[in-house]
């Protein structure tokens, strides 16, 4: 199945694929950032592959000079009972990624979480707000430079009597 997915994607989106990787029989394909919606739409609508369920979107901070952040899309095909992962790389200076909420509704909250935790901005997202941290919180806690103990005074806490 892995082979088939790679072949199919390569025949349609040869220019969009950055790299293909397989680890523990799990397929990971890195896609160019601006083509992600196109590729997702194809994977969802293709009659053979039919990745109709987006299980998860999450960010990751690799803390490296180029392509510091990654957005990971976990797809599942109910028809083929099969999983795959898509990834896009995001630069620190330009943290914009096209949103896939137009393809799967489940991307909504997951992208809000990635925005909250990493500061990755999803363009065309209907309601991009923080989901866990309070509005007005300045930092993005899952970035590697954010200290584990938090930043004193950054969260408004109720006053002790």
């Amino acid at each position, binding site marked *: 199945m892995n082979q088939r997915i790679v072949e199919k994607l390569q025949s349609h989106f040869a220019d969009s694929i950055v790299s293909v990787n397989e680890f523990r029989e799990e397929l990971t394909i890195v896609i160019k950032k601006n083509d992600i919606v196109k590729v997702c739409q194809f994977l969802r609508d293709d009659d053979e592959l039919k990745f109709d369920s987006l299980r*998860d979107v999450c960010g990751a901070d690799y803390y490296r000079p180029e392509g510091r952040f990654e957005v990971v899309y976990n797809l599942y095909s109910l028809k083929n009972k099969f999983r795959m992962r898509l990834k896009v790389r995001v630069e620190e200076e330009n943290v914009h990624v096209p949103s896939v909420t137009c393809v799967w509704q489940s991307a*909504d*909250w997951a992208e809000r979480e990635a925005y909250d935790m990493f500061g990755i901005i999803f363009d065309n997202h209907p309601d991009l707000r923080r*989901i866990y941290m309070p509005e007005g919180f300045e930092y993005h*806690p899952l970035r590697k430079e954010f200290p584990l103990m938090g930043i004193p005074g950054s969260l408004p806490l109720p006053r002790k009597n």
Partner: protein
Amino acid sequence: MNIPITESQLKILRALENQDTTITFDDPLESDMVLNMGPQHPATHGVLRLIIRLDGETVVAAVPELGYLHRGYEKLAENMSFHEFIPHTDRLDYLSTLANNVAYVLAVEKLAGIEAPRRAQFIRVICAELARLTSHLVALGTMVMDTGAVTILLWAWREREKIQDIQDELTGVRFTTSFTRVGGLAQDMSDASLSMIKDFIQQFPEKLIECEKLVLKNRIFIQRCEGIGVISKEDAISLGWTGPNLRGSGVDHDLRRDNPYLVYNELDFHVPVYNDGDTLARFYVRLQEMRESVKIIQQCLEKMPQGPIHASNPKKVLPRKENIYGKMEELIHDFMIVNFGINPPVGEVYHAIEASKGELGFYIVSKGEGVPWRLKIRSPSFVNLQAMPLLVKGHLISDVVAIIGSIDPVMGEADK
């Protein structure tokens, strides 16, 4: 019917007409009211906050707000070894702690490339199914209580209490179990816990029928649930729903059967599916799943072999405590694993199990160190809750509690 107007009333009416007064009031059907439900509301099953826009008693729109139980486990995980994170998985879905332990170690084992021995796998299946029973019993009890029947809650919690006692005997604690280890289990199943589980599954189906008799023909309960919170198959798939909620919408999908892990492919069980997609269908799915769980546990007890419960891989699996005191190598391995971690290879894995609420998955990125570089928890409650605005739209405010009960969220998991 004409009521004759008295002289004094006529006087008042004339006075009003002369003075050009207009009585204005807001029409309750045209002006909306915003109601803040939660985070401290008993029917929201934890600290879920719903901001609901009401038109009279009908819900026009709803916005769920999360984060009241956010403890930043994903950040914590990046700062502790793989073993140290096991107790934290208990606090995710705190109603099915054992299933979380199993899901997490399976992901770590996949990353490290080790496999637990067969006996451990059977015990893990028993653990996961016991966790499903505890979780579904709470879902059953609280949902029925939210619609007005208190008896079932007490009866369901009586059964749940027996499972807590089993957990006490099996793992040493009643609630926060932390039972699994990478490559095995904390301890073997004792004869006492084995006989407790046997006794429990012997009497449980009868007790379940007793509970069912109270609700299945209860007109109040049926009318409060039937046709409420309907979600179509397509929406449920697009929203990323999994588990009993998805199966209530007519999608025949169960990770235990479709992508088998542990020893589920050797076990014979049925996946209940209902097509209505309403609150009642989701309730029925959970009810039927409990019967299947009992069947699975029964088969596991029959098929479970004797043998070791730890994989033989000294660099990755913690040695037994009794060996640490007597053998030099074991002492060194224990020191290395506790202080520096198990150092899995560079790579990334995602492993998901069918937990009681749906697909519980862990995505781990490793850079070859003793701590995960990134650990993402894909929690079913978080994804399932996303459908709330869609589900409650157009229903009465009193239906909202029934709908929350039917999708069975646990905020410890949704907020992570």
